[in-house]
């Protein structure tokens, strides 16, 4: 591959993503036009549905919270040169840990349940990432394949547990009983209400702040610690890492454990924060969205945060769009989301060279740098 044109920082992180997003929206608009609805009205509905009211913002950030956790998880593994496709399964099993703590210790005060739930979520996710990591480090089994397989094993395990063990007797739905109220993650509207700021009741909860804290910790870890340095070196060049006294096998396992732990925290938001019970398929694809979020956010916590909010907005705005425009069904919404991923992820370099030329910086592709 020829080297990509260089852009100034503001264009790299601001202008280019904006142009990509615009292109995706234009193409989506054309498709909406084709099915006979007004693209303008659709865009307004979507934007309004995602950011137009406190309720809209609450839901957007609630979805974003899940994506931040899984996105951070994917990013940490990526820095170590590992493509973790298993965030979905790790989130599922991590959520199981969180849920079991909430079911068992619901009578404890919240501030005692919270740390245990966080630990159990992280432990569950890490445990689910351990075997693929070990297989990669010691046996060379490719992490992409093993983590995908572990997603299926996780869903098989969870279906069995929910149908046979955890189900509340006498009901059809494979769900556990509801957690005791002490194990509910406080909603952000109650927290804000306590300090006198009124906010609409939404599922947005304390886990959002935990996700922000996790973002800061990931940044500190990856860029400000020795272990983070080792992680990045091993990711870029395992041979050089070994020469420098770093053991890539250990890095592989460590990075995957951390990655799984982050993805496993999704249950804090989905289960403790919103559903208040363990139910079938609660990650709902957030593990896979996490991959898109990490790629789009350039594996940097700030980028992941922004990309998560964008995807949260697409989910929430898309849901409002199909609510108000019956012709735009949920599959159309997936098409729009897919176009955004396509332009911002896979085709991100399409506009790079023309932009660089336009800005008079950098050289066209293929020339000397």
């Amino acid at each position, binding site marked *: 591959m020829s080297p990509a044109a260089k852009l100034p920082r503001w264009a790299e992180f601001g202008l280019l993503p904006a142009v990509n997003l615009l292109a995706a929206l234009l193409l989506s608009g054309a498709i909406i036009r084709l099915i006979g609805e007004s693209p303008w009205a659709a865009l307004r509905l979507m934007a309004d549905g995602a950011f137009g009211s406190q309720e809209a913002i609450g839901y957007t950030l609630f979805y974003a919270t899940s994506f931040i956790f899984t996105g951070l998880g994917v990013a940490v593994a990526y820095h170590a040169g590992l493509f973790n496709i298993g965030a979905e399964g790790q989130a599922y099993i991590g959520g199981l840990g969180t849920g079991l703590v909430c079911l068992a210790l619901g009578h404890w005060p919240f501030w005692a349940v919270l740390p245990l739930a966080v630990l159990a979520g992280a432990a569950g996710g890490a445990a689910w990432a351990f075997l693929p990591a070990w297989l990669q480090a010691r046996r060379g089994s490719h992490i992409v394949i093993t983590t995908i397989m572990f997603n*299926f094993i996780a869903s098989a395990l969870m279906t069995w547990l929910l*149908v046979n063990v955890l189900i509340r*007797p006498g009901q059809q739905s494979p769900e556990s009983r509801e957690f005791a109220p002490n194990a509910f993650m406080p909603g952000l509207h109650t927290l804000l209400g306590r300090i006198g700021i009124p906010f609409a009741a939404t599922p947005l909860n304390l886990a959002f702040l935990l996700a922000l804290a996790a973002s800061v910790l990931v940044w500190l870890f990856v860029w400000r610690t020795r272990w983070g340095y080792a992680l990045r070196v091993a990711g870029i060049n395992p041979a050089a890492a070994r020469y420098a006294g770093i053991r890539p096998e250990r890095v592989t396992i460590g990075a995957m454990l951390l990655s799984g732990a982050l993805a496993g925290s999704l249950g804090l938001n989905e289960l403790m924060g919103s559903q208040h019970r363990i*139910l*079938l*398929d609660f990650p709902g694809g957030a593990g896979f969205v996490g991959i898109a979020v990490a790629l789009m956010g350039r594996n940097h916590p700030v980028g992941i945060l922004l990309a998560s909010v964008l995807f949260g907005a697409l989910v929430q705005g898309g849901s409002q769009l*199909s*609510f108000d425009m*019956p012709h735009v069904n949920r599959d159309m919404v997936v098409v729009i989301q897919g176009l955004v991923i396509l332009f911002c992820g896979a085709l991100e370099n399409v506009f790079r060279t023309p932009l660089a030329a336009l800005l008079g910086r950098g050289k066209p592709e293929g020339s000397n740098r």
Partner: protein
Amino acid sequence: MSFSRFSLAFLAGLAAAAAGVANEFSPAIVYDFGGKFDRSFNQSASEGAQKFKADTGIAYREFEITNAAQREQIMAQLARRGATIIVAVGFTQASAVEKVARQFPEVKFTIIDAVVDLPNVQSINFREQESSFLCGMAAALASKTGKIGFVGGMDIPLIRKFALGYVEGARHVNPTVEVFQNMTGTTPTAWGDPTKGGELARSQFGRGADVVFHAAGATGIGVMQAAQDAGMLSIGCDSNQDYLHPGSVLTSAVKRVDVAVYKAFSDARSGTWRAGQVALGLAENGVDYSYDEYNRGILTPTMKQRLDQARADIVAGRIKVSEYKP
């Protein structure tokens, strides 16, 4: 479109929305993950709603769920925008209905396949085991090998309910019948995987089965196709699927979700809607086996006679069909 025209349209839309709130009858329906084109459960519900619209000219709002948090949000939104009755399709909606029904005690809710015990919720449940029992009988009667198959979607209580009734019905005819049971998967994609459904059916044929019953949503399309290709018999589910492969689909375990939805809408409109539990079985024509011009050739009069006899016995309580209880 010019901007002024757009804003005019927008204002007109707002006015229409405002008018909708003013005490008009406004029904709504919320489908589950399968979506309204699953050729099975949700689609049947959608057909009921469409029939109501065709008969009365009253439009309804509908929504297809894509994630768990959405359920509550959408139902609350429907209630706020003046829905008179909201039909929630599928047992996964139970907890959302419970929460939203508490918030909006003046709105009527009907949930299908689950029980929510609140003064403004009607819970409609089907006794699927009864129609499955008859289909199990039909399978055992039609089988020449004494081996029959069952392909489920996911291993969840609802599907075990189908399987249990099916096995009991088959044993009722032939106590030594062998029943192969397979589930398609462990994720919701198991409801929409015809390829895998076909594979499972073929493996059951390979083990000697010659009739296979599916309770697997759109996955069943593959099951029935495989039976047709192999010259075997299949049994459809939820909707009447006899027409899909005439001469190969022995019968269908019909579940009249469409009737339930239609009745909920029209009762709510006429004021005869009542909260509480409604159980629909053979006696109420809520479930049944299908018999029409497509399967007349294979479901022989002697078989039909046995099925109708058993049907009457179940209705009269002379045959007890067990219900799977989680």
